[in-house]
């Protein structure tokens, strides 16, 4: 009697600090396709997972922000390389989640290209957004950008790969670390993307990916006092109001992207990096320079 081989299915777990733990809560929810068919059991993360992930992201911030801009660019490029190598797997997962083949291929290639795009910007956005400022006294006055710190991101629901990549890339390109809540309805390739991150040279903790319910976790992602910015990308007036109110508790930056079409190339720009940067202005005393006594 011959036996039929059983396919070994993947356990989808979460990604915190460069490791793949399960949720501390032990809960799960079921990811289904459009027809309601079972795809996988996903971790249903709790507020404590959010807390742990934010703590880990905070720990990783010092090292990541201290890397040279060029090195951050190299690492983003490396993520793209890894994604390119696993294209087929992502196309398959996107199709499982309901995309047709052409759309899936398009989303994956676009995601790779977007990583390359922000990789290139890593050591260039500073030059664009920084400035030397005219002042009326004998100071050299200049403004330069610095990363904000820990950013929490609620990834778009419908584009589970390109949406996550489009929000994550500018945040980490600018030297921040982040905690991402993956698409609740299409979480598969968000977790698989964590495997890509883990096999690139990205230090653990720079990107942390959770799965679970937006309604349950958003209050914690937006109210945690050790978070410096919140990024939300859905059209939901109640949720946006709550994010803004919670953010006001410790004056977090909020970035709300309601109308972005992530498949569109128009929605990639260094301004997304700028959204998560603080401007530091320095007054450096100097003698007046030149006959015009220009005070720069």
């Amino acid at each position, binding site marked *: 009697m011959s036996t039929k081989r059983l396919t070994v299915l993947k356990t989808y777990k979460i990604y915190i600090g460069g490791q793949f733990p399960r949720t501390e809560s032990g809960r799960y929810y079921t990811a289904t396709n459009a027809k309601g068919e079972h795809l996988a059991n996903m971790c249903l993360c709790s507020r404590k997972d959010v*807390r742990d992930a*934010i703590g880990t992201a905070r720990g990783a911030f010092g090292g990541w922000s201290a890397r040279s801009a060029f090195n951050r660019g190299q690492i983003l490029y490396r993520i793209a390389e890894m994604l390119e190598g696993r294209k087929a797997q992502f196309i398959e997962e996107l199709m499982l989640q309901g995309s047709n083949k052409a759309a899936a291929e398009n989303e994956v290639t676009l995601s790779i290209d977007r990583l390359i795009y922000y990789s290139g910007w890593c050591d260039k956005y500073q030059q664009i957004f920084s400035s030397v400022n005219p002042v009326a006294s004998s100071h050299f006055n200049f403004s330069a950008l610095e990363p904000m710190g820990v950013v929490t991101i609620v990834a778009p629901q419908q584009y589970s790969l390109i949406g996550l990549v489009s929000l994550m890339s500018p945040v980490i390109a600018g030297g921040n670390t982040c905690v991402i809540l993956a698409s609740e309805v299409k979480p598969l390739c968000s977790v698989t993307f964590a495997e890509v991150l883990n096999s690139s040279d990205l230090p653990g903790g720079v990107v942390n990916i959770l799965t679970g319910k937006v309604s349950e976790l958003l209050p*914690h992602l937006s*109210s*945690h*006092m*050790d*978070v410096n910015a919140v990024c939300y990308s859905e059209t939901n007036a109640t949720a946006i109001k709550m994010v803004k109110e919670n953010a006001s*508790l*410790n004056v977090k930056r909020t970035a709300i992207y309601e109308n972005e079409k992530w498949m569109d190339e128009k929605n990639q720009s260094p301004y997304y990096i700028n959204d998560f940067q603080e401007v530091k202005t320095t007054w450096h005393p100097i003698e007046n320079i030149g006959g015009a006594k220009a005070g720069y």
Partner: protein
Amino acid sequence: MNTIPDFTISPRIDQVGVEERASRFTKRSIKNETKINGLKLALNMIDLTTLEGKDTDGKVKQLCYKAMHLHDVYAGLPTVAAICVYPSMVGVAKKALGDSGIKVASVATAFPSGQSTRDIKIRDTKFAISQGADEIDMVISRGKFHQGEYNFVFDEIAAIKEACGNARLKVILETGELGTYDKVRKASDIAMYAGADFIKTSTGKISPAATMPVTLVMLEAIRDFYYKTGKKIAMKPAGGISKAKLALHYLVMLNEVLGEGWMNNEWFRFGASSLANDILMQLMKQRTGLYQSGDYFSND
């Protein structure tokens, strides 16, 4: 007068049993009101410590201010138990703390290695006392201990105890350098019979510092000593306890091994520096419902 036992036959420790039992203490669920009380108690048991070559008068003054004003936003907080500094900083700390009731503990006896002569160790101790230290944290001679010269270790502790006068003496075993639980138990027995008021795990300069199993072995030594002699000895784990949750685990262990009589800062201390802020953050979390950030708490 108690008879002094033969330390070569101190009880042996079951390593697996001790580690298993210690891990059980970490699995209690402590919530809400109990948790808040536990956190406040732990806060009140801290010896806020700075023991660095780069300590300055300013740093010590600032630490003293921190000890008295842990987080003024939160009304009704206790203060820490003591400030722990080098002998040269005792005068500064004493003045800065004034009549706040916070004690000044000073390390002495050629801390942290203890590699010096007895004469110098006694003078080191007396200097700290003359500066106003309320408590002395001495280190034992680990080298002599390993050579089996238990009498030397015993006599040294007794000599320092004599030099302390009314100040309470904490004896640091430096368990990270002792190697086995058997030796920790033996060193605990020697220290207690020689006159220690506290036994303390570590200097904080050696890794591993305090661990729960080591502390458990020492707590059990204290319990046995109490049953034999009727004398209470205090305990101070030090080094590596930086999280509020871990501090609560220690309190659970303390309560279950020695009981309520030890559940205050006369009989139990945490030697720590960053633990205070983590406890403060947890207390604020309980009060506001929001996870806190270190950005909103003073460093020292």
